[in-house]
């Protein structure tokens, strides 16, 4: 059976994505910086679903290593899902360039680096799919988190271009825009329950959208309408707001 490559496998969303694909019979490559921290998940998935699962060391900001990482995968994955993401306090980013650079490099530059390589391979073979987990924060820059938001905006634009380019090669690209998700990344935030998705629901939404060949999804889906409103607030009003 075919392999799926999950990049950024330590996050709560990645854990649930791996489970959903395993449940549906796919074998899994889990790629992340710290292999040790992924062993429990690999063991969990093997017990549950009897599929093959391999751990691969991968550092998304070590751009130079990406080509050889991909070359070394014996069976090439039929699908790649980039979940890697980095969010720190906006204030922190404003005061500390390293934090800003890390945000941009994890969320955008690194993702572009590995996806360029994979997209070229998929294009030649005329098959495969790519899923990028971006964010609603990329839909409009807000003072509360525009460093993170702009890195996700760039990633969304990249995925849009990639989708356009690969359309003729029958390679499907899905952009995922989660709103609030109840994860380790957001545990310090006081999130409104009605607008907050659980990681397993996000994973289910991703699997379904990918199987159906959708282009862009919001999860929870209500975020499509929230962002529609936010995007349409005139700038002369928006610039005075605190949201």
């Amino acid at each position, binding site marked *: 059976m075919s392999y799926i490559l999950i990049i950024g496998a330590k996050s*709560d969303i990645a854990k649930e994505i791996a489970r959903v694909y395993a*449940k549906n019979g796919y074998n899994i490559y889990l790629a992340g910086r710290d292999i040790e921290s992924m062993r*429990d*998940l690999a*063991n*969990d998935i093997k*017990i*549950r*679903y009897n599929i093959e699962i391999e751990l691969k060391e991968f550092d998304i900001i070590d751009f130079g290593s990406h080509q050889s990482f991909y070359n070394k995968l014996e069976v090439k994955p039929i699908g790649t899902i980039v979940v890697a993401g980095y969010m720190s306090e906006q204030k922190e980013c404003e005061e500390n360039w390293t934090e800003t650079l890390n945000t941009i490099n994890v969320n955008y530059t690194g993702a572009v680096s590995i996806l360029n390589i994979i997209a070229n391979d998929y294009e030649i073979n005329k098959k495969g799919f790519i899923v990028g987990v971006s964010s609603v924060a990329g839909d409009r820059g807000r003072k509360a988190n525009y460093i993170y938001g702009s890195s996700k905006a760039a990633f969304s634009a990249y995925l849009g271009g990639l989708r356009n380019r690969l359309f003729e090669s029958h390679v499907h690209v899905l952009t995922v825009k989660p709103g609030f998700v*109840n994860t*380790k990344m957001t*545990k310090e935030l*006081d*999130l409104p*329950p009605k607008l*907050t998705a659980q990681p397993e629901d996000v994973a289910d939404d991703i699997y379904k959208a990918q199987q159906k060949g959708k282009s862009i999804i919001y999860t929870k889906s209500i975020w499509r309408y929230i962002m529609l409103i936010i995007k349409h607030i005139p700038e002369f009003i928006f610039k005075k707001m605190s949201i």
Partner: protein
Amino acid sequence: MNLNSWGMYPYIKNKSISLESRDRLKIEILSDKELIPFGNGRSYGDSALNENIIYCKPYNYFLDFDDESGILHCQSGVLLSEIIEAFVPKGWFLKVTPGTKLITIGGAVASDIHGKNHHVEGCFSECVEEFTLMLANGEITTCKRDDELFLATCGGMGLTGVILDAKISLKKINSKYINQTTIKTKNLQETFEAFEKYAYLPYSVAWIDCLAKDENIGKCLLMVGDFADDGNLDFKDSRKLNIPFNFPSFALNTLSVKAFNWLYYKKSPHGESKQKVDIDTFFYPLDAINNWNRIYGKGGFTQYQFILPKDVSYDGLKEILGTISKSGKGSFLAVLKLYGKGNENYLSFPIEGYSLALDFKIEKGLFELLDKLDEIVLKYNGRIYLTKDVRVSKETFEKGYPSIEKFRKFRKDNKMDKKFNSLQSKRVGI
């Protein structure tokens, strides 16, 4: 994130801390906060609510499975539904399961839950080989079947510590289907006779029409059955309906409940009939509707579940059903079950006898009615199930649980009473 229980009452503000690792948990436990573990929020009342909550569901790895012995080792946040999904296709099922599969392993131990087969298999603790627990001092200990910690923790409502992982034994099955017999009875006498007649079958549960009056009191549909043996284990999670918002409060009234009960009862043919139904239909009919708690409106609801000793069950139930029927307060669901012998755990609910569970919308006059029911329950030496409860008084609770002093002392001796508390534990003083 703010968490609430299944009854959506009381609706309180709280802060939840996700259980991610033992190290992180230890830091939380050693802080000066009072805590209560919380699983998937399916207990009805305030037993897992407090200002600070340890949210255990994200702690959900399967750790090991031995397909010789059928023993599964998993973390406490694993849901029963996840075990069913992974193991029914391999021919294994839970030895004991409640009427929802959307509860965590930690919750199953803490409530020492029971199912339709209590008269044969007992409580959940019967299938627990051992578990690990983080205590009030941050230490981790393995609890085995004869330990006092085992007796106090199974049924102990999360008040002895945070359950980290457990080894539970599964049972072999050879089908995803259950051969079910449905018996329609006309009154309580017939209902009891039917229960006794079919007590040899492992699974039984009765659905009682609470609004029936006079000679019809206690009329029911009794469903009994056992697993089929056809080798079909092709189990898939079934599609679910969703209740997307809270129903307006007038949606549920005596008339609508009456109509529902009537339809449900009418649907079945007279006397006995046989069906072949799947695991979800037989064990978890309500799980088919996501958020079914919303039909009671945003004011919330509660479930009143009590158990009476066998020799007085008939008289007690008759009196209680009569009182409910007279009150006109609708219960959407009333479930009657037969129980086998109780166990040694300090706070496990089951004793040998019959229990009835009824749902009530929270409304004016309800708690007065429930107080009245409490009196009848105590008169017949019964007790209330903490997992469902949100309002029982300290006095009523204590009278039902003779081991309560042992439990209190154990908590005090181990400084658990200063660390692990829920709104419920404070109300009933445990």
